[in-house]
């Protein structure tokens, strides 16, 4: 394009999208930083400037740190299990068997459905189906609903999240396996590499770019878990399964401490950004070209 009509071009092409982006993302983000320094309660017209007092409030909010710790535990479980499972299933799926596409599509199904609906489906499974299995078989593990016991409710949350996320990661890992060059694999076989050796020295390094993507996606999704948390356990029993994102919501919209809530949201954001940044840096370093 010529520079003559630059102003007009800008208005036609760039402005609509830019406006939406700035109005919905940039301004609220900047304003959010300001909000952490006020004592706004969500209703009153006056917002008093209180400096860093809200961050002190965050320090004193024991429940926030408990939920953050729980979120860390949850993220570790979910990220590890999802990626190991998805990698394994993707490996099995790309052995050239029949029905590969059918399986792949089936595993992906939970990703098409909103977390709210998924959580409710599983709530029924845990509170009725599993309990019924427990009653009729006498398996003590199932006799009481998992959702009424803190550590089992946590396990339930991990299980559902793994079920929900792994289909997506399977797709990415399958794409990665399909992209592996036949030549390289053949060369490895000719050189006498065994299955395990091939996996460790050839497949893993070449799959690192898929691993980077999958780790990043699972990390950021697991840290921000909300829908499934809300519909499966809603923090019950007694707030023992309340994750950080849910706590932020409660703090702001239920306890009406918007300043503290926003400060917690920012802290959460910084933690997630740092951890994903480190992860991408570390795994990217291991990526190789075939």
């Amino acid at each position, binding site marked *: 394009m010529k520079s003559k009509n630059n102003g007009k071009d800008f208005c036609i092409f760039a402005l609509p999208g830019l406006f939406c982006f700035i109005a919905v*993302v940039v301004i609220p983000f900047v304003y959010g930083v300001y909000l952490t320094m006020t004592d706004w309660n969500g209703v009153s017209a006056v917002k008093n400037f209180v400096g860093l007092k809200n961050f002190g409030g965050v320090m004193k909010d024991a429940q926030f740190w408990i939920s953050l710790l729980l979120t860390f535990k949850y993220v570790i479980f979910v990220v590890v299990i999802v990626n190991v499972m998805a990698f394994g299933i993707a490996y099995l799926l790309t052995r050239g068997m029949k029905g590969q596409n059918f399986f792949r599509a089936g*595993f992906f199904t939970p990703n098409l459905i*909103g977390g709210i609906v998924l959580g409710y489906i599983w709530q029924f499974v845990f509170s009725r189906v599993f309990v019924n299995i427990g009653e009729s078989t006498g398996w003590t593990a199932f006799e009481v609903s998992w959702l009424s016991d803190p550590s089992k409710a946590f396990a339930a949350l991990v299980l559902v999240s793994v079920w929900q996320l792994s289909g997506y990661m399977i797709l990415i890992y399958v794409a990665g396996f399909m992209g592996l060059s036949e030549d390289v694999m053949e060369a490895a076989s000719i050189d006498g590499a065994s299955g395990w050796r091939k996996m460790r020295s050839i497949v893993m390094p070449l799959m690192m770019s898929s691993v980077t993507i999958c780790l990043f996606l699972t990390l950021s999704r697991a840290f921000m878990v909300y829908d499934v948390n809300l519909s499966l356990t809603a923090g019950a029993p007694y707030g023992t399964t309340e994750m950080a994102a849910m706590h932020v919501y409660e703090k702001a919209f239920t306890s009406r401490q918007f300043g503290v809530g926003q400060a917690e949201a920012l802290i959460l954001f910084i933690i997630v950004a740092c951890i994903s940044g480190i992860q991408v840096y570390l795994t990217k370093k291991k990526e190789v070209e075939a």
Partner: protein
Amino acid sequence: MQQTVVGGTKKKAADMLAMAGLIVIFIAYMFPFLMVVINSLKQKRDIIKSPFSWLFTIKGLSFDNFVKAFTQMDFLNAFKNSLIVTVSATALVTLFAAMLAYYIVRHKNWISKITFALMVASMIIPFQAIMIPLVSIYGGTLNILNHRLTLIFMHTGFSMAMSVFMFHGFINGNIPIALEEAAYIDGCTHSQTFFKIVFPLLKPIISTMVILNALAFWNDFLLPSLVLTDKELLTLPLSTYSFYGTYSADYGTIMAGLLLCVVPILILYVVLQKQIINGVVAGAVK
């Protein structure tokens, strides 16, 4: 020769084992859906007695649950709301993002550079870090919550960065500038060139972005729950949420309601399976 035969049977056995493992995992994956389908047709006392029993044991199978869920959820209305929001927001973000990305690629000035850098950086901001000020600005100062248009606008804004990023990559790699120059020589204006020449060429990335965005909008819960409270305006996930709150003990009706929410997407999935899967993979890998 001997060795290949041995290796062949070994591989066959391993394949069988892998297949068996896959089938077991797959059944476990589908188990919750199966439970929903079975129990959506049963009455509450039969569900409590045994969630597993089906046709063989229960005589009281009926579609009553569906009728009840359909009316209690105000399903048609919620479905319509979801459809309006999803379609409009998807159309808007596709158009605006394509144009903005096109501008950024073809104009290497400071505005493009800053815009693009800002958008890429913003992609790591989770929604939770913005939702409180968002409510404060749009609910307090502007007071325009509880309108469908507000939600459409916000969906558009939130998916802008990711969409621009994807379009940017595609235009950069796949659209030769010579085509546009030819169009200018033939007397096309910039808008004509974009809409008649460039936009049609973006079809592959458009279908990817439409799938990704539409799925996200259709299933989103948190943002709509903050924007919409008026019962008339609730989208499907919101109306599921309030419906569940009221009827959580009425298992049969709940299962029917959940199934109603899932079925439209599944039908679409069966029809567009290839496009959806390719779209999701393309979206993730870039």
